[in-house]
């Protein structure tokens, strides 16, 4: 019961999680890098607010889906780098299929076509 409720309202938050996890699939990355990557890969459309990004990163870390460690960047700066864990990969796969279902469902609602007759 509660699980279902959460799935419904946490959709947007879940979307950011999905984006972050997906970005980390290509390799470990720091927070700035993740925000830049999401921005570049979405054609400059999605700009992730730092006030959402960092809570999301830390929450994903607590969940055990990503792990963080301190590395020294090419500019000799200490940066906190996140990488996807095994549990995170499983979660990403689950989230992706959920996202696919969701976008199909939304598409279905927005383009009522073949299903009209059933209604």
């Amino acid at each position: 019961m509660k699980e279902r409720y959460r799935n419904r309202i946490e959709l947007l938050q879940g979307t950011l999680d999905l984006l972050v996890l997906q970005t980390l699939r290509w390799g470990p990355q720091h927070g700035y890098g993740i925000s830049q990557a999401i921005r570049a890969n979405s054609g400059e459309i999605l700009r992730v607010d730092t006030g959402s990004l960092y809570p999301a990163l830390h929450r994903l870390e607590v969940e055990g889906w990503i792990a963080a460690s301190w590395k020294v960047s090419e500019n000799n700066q200490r940066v906190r780098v996140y990488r996807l864990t095994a549990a995170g990969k499983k979660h990403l796969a689950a989230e992706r299929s959920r996202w696919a279902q969701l976008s199909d469902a939304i598409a279905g609602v927005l383009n009522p076509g073949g299903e009209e007759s059933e209604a």
Partner: protein
Amino acid sequence: MKLPLGGKRGKELDEEIESHVRMAIRDRMERGESAEEAEANARREFGNAGVVREVTQDAWGWRWLENLAQDVRFGLRMLGKSPGFTSVAVLTLALGIGANTTIFSWIHSVLLNPLPGVGEANRVVALETLTPDGNWVPTSYLDFRDLRDNCKLVESMSVAKPMDLAVGNDVNIERVWGEVVSGNFFELLHVQPELGRFFTTAEVDHEQNTHALAILSHSFWMSHYQADPRVIGATVRINHFPYTIIGVAPAAFHGSMPGLTFDMWAPATMYGQLSSTGDATLRDRKWRTFRVLARLAPGDSIEQARDEVKSIAKRMAVADADTNDGMSATLLPMWKAHYGIQESLVGPFSILMAACGVLLLIVCANVGNLLLTRATTRQKEFSLRLALGAPRSRLIRQVLTESLLIGTGGMLAGLEIASLLLGSLGFLLPRSSTPSLTRAPIDTSVLLFAIAVAFATAMIAGAAPAFQAAKGNVNDALKEGGRTGASARSRRLRGLFVVSEMALAMVALIGAGLFVKSFIRLSEIRPGFDPEHVAIANLDISAANYNAEQADSYSQRLREQLERQPGVADVSYADYVPLGVNNGSWEDLEIRGFVPAPGENMKIYRTLAAPGYFELMKIKVLQGRDFNLKDDMTALPVMIVNEEFVRRFIPNGTAIGRQVNGWGKWFTIVGVVQDSKVYRLTEAPTPYFYVPIRQIYRPEMGLVFYVRTSGPMDGAILGIRRAAQAVDPAVPVFEATSLDDIIAGSLFGQRISASLLSVLASVALLLAAIGLYGVMSYSVEQRTNEIGIRVALGAQPRDVLRLVLSDGARLAGFGVAGGALAGVVLTRLLSSLLFGISATDPFTFGEVAILLTGVALLACAIPALRAMRVDPMVALRYE
């Protein structure tokens, strides 16, 4: 939601945010912005760093709480699924926590927080006068005044003397314990009145017997005046004198003696009136009768103050050589002070706390074992969760959460047990003449103690199973299919637990055995008189304001009244009860023909006795005669001494007829009686003397009637009460009991140790047996296959029995051996508290080893019998 978070994590977050901004600046500068522009834009784009920091920290906080809530919910569900396991674990913990909390709260109320309701109580110390041979005695009022006026390192000093007061009118007299105190008593203790006011200095030090004022305890005010504020200014009759109530003490305050409760306070200057001694007590340096309390001046240590007190006492010993020659004084922390019950409780309490610690370790091992068994059977669940991506740390937390839940349950049940047991100390204390014991409360410190013990126990017990759970190899566990396997490591761990449990139980049993035997030996000591069939009653003649003649005639009439009662074989009276809790009185003696060595202690203790005392007590008169009715005020003073007195002071010549000086008079020795115990059953023979109560009368002295009866004891005790009421109702009987009970009371410290240790050791034995039983029956279950194969291959039931029993016996053997070794080391600490038995008494060790082995074999017998009945067909079909 703000949670207190570690600074390290916060600093790391700051650094992470800063590195984000720096990278943004660098990128912007690479795109051609100037350094200032880049910085300003990057910071603007980032937004409010403070807010980002805050919401990010929220992510930690909520998650932490959510995980905890989830763990707790899951844990409760898992525990609910196995009620048997849960109740055994909770009960085991409750026993351990309950016992520990009870003993701790006793220690807390008597030793750690000896003066509840007193401000800065750790600065309050006791001053005690020392006799030349190092014994402690109360202090005379004049000595107190000199010490008070000369001691600079002590902020203030006050006397306090416990007194039993007869409160009420002729119709209804009640005996109430009170203290007579200096005017600055409450000020010294930093106690504020709940109602009205306390004494002032003027009311104490100047005029004698003029300030008839009383202060009530909170509980007395509640019970006798229904908390009516109009009590201030009311009159209460104490020992028949009217006293004006001026104040009520706060509820938390119980008086100035550790562990005891008083209900009334009066100025020390009224002592003469209350005890019918006039003002002699406050004018005579020899009349050592007061306790002295002192508050250390700020910044001064007790050692410095003690040195000062010693040097003042030394000067006094010279200045008042006639009374104080060789005397000294010292300061002691309250819990070490001798006046009160704490001295006899320090020993038993430390032993009991140690035994409780042992019990708690057994509890840890037992609960740890239970959890380990469960962890093994839940290995599949854990492996599955690991396979599904749960971090190992999460599993560890899950197991520890369950352990903590059990701990919480155990703590709640343990506190319940403790609150039931707290009052039981009262039953073990002597019923004789002490104020009632303050009921140890379950207060914040006790609660914190229980929580700490529960937490520590849960963590210790949960540690091994938690790591066991986290170590689980995903593949191995799942491959085993339906069967649950116990790794060799887990079996070894459980074996180790059981061995340590057996060893700990062995130590506890040895301790209990030694104390029980020591107690039995103590009880077997012959006191030198015959306490059986003797009823005694303490009478408070000071309440009736008798003079010497009236007191004498009262005693005669009461004696006649008692002699007429049925079943009464003998009646006599004295001023003292041997082996009671009161310290007796002594007199400085000069013995003709005996020259004391320099500094030799000639303060000899004595009893004032009536004719017939020795016959009643069955103390043999070896030479000369008993006192008789002719030995009164008008006759020549006479004295009877004991054998040791003669041995010490009159080694040559005859004792009878020898002159002895005391109270400024010459007494003639008319008899020698055999030695008997006076203060402690364990004391060596001590010089002692008796004088006729009719020749040395002191109005404040005790009056104790002795009745030897051929009838039942209760009837005799009631008879004394009735007779006293009939002769003069103004004289309250404040204690009527049997002499046997008094002697039992003198052993109360040993009795507490022996009886409570036996209880603790039995619980320890029971828990160890349960632990062994659990391990053995689990191991039989695990080995069902193996046993089945053995039986199939021709093993007889006898062989199976031997197989299981030898396994159990091996564990028990290790435990007994370890326990014996630990016992040899640990019981040595007890030697000073034991009597008539060596701390490494081989018989006790042997008996305990046999008992423990026997119980261990019994615990193994049930699983062994089950193993014998294994049907090879069924067992093998499991595969």
